[in-house]
């Protein structure tokens, strides 16, 4: 058996890790977006649920089914040796909201992906981040064949706060996704600066 002992001497760099969430409705392109910028293939973690599904899941006839599985896709971007950004795609099903809380804790910010053909699918995500004052950017994923709307029309349709940036993007395009992520961090910085201002009531 080969033991890896050679590197034992030097202490590994302890990176600072940050996370950005990617939310939105089913099939809106969350995993595509993560994959467009991640240096690793989007990975998937699973959490086994037991009690949570009981009142919701009809288990008649499947008495053996005590668990259900929920998956989260995530990707990684190493910005520097000591600075790593993780992207987490949130699970789509509404009843896994409690997992969002775990994901959202300590998150730098979020991207809410929207599809103009099914705008209502992202209402829940917008609502979630607004309530928890997590800075977010709405990325309108421009699908081929879907009519284009100006960002302002989307802002109105979603009844967004003036300060929330709305950007048109292509979840498959690396450059486009980079712009969206830069937008999230910039927005988070502005939000932090605004929070530091003394409250004037």
């Amino acid at each position, binding site marked *: 058996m080969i033991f890896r002992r050679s590197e034992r001497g030097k202490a590994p760099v302890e990176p600072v890790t940050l*996370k950005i969430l990617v939310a939105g409705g089913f099939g809106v392109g969350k995993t595509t977006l993560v994959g467009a910028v991640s240096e690793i293939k989007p990975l998937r973690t699973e959490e086994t649920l037991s009690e949570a599904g009981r009142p919701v899941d009809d288990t008649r006839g499947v008495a053996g089914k005590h668990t259900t599985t929920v998956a989260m896709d995530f990707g990684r971007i190493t*910005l520097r040796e000591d600075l790593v950004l993780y992207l987490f795609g949130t699970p789509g099903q509404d009843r896994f909201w409690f997992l969002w809380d775990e994901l959202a804790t300590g998150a730098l910010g979020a991207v809410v992906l929207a599809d103009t053909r099914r705008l209502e699918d992202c209402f829940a995500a917008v609502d979630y981040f607004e309530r928890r004052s997590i800075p977010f950017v709405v990325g309108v994923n421009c699908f081929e064949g879907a009519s284009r709307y100006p960002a302002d029309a989307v802002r109105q349709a979603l009844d967004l706060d003036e300060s929330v940036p709305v950007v048109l993007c292509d979840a498959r395009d690396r450059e486009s996704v980079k712009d969206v992520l830069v937008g999230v*961090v910039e927005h988070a910085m502005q939000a932090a600066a605004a929070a530091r201002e003394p409250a004037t009531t």
Partner: protein
Amino acid sequence: MSDDGRGTQRTKALRGIPGARGTPGPQETPRWFDDDAGPVVRPYAMTRGRTTSPAQHRLDLIAVVIAEAGAAGAPEADQTLSPEHVDIVELCRDAPQSVAELAAELDLPIGVIRVLIGDLVDDELVHVTRPVPPAELPDESILRDVISGLRAL
């Protein structure tokens, strides 16, 4: 992606069994072999039934696990460790790993990974760096670094 939709497959497997286990259904029961049939060892059997690790508050998904440089000897030789424990130490020795990456890499639920990491912290084989505490944004200079790092990708 290695196991897309394995969960749904498992669900189908369970749905395919009408009534009690082993009773043949009216139709041919679909058969699942190897990995399709689900894990051989139930996930929480690896933690001996523990779902939380004492004296360790919940590890964040992006908390980084680092192999202790001073950890003497090879974890492979430690009889008190399970194969999963050894896997974690080995992965972390190559490079620091986030909790989420370890879970994905070893294909274990996050809850199980948390307990196993807690054991290893107790044994002083690894230590965990806490990410920026919630409710506290990272330093502005870090955010600037993130922006320039993203632009330079």
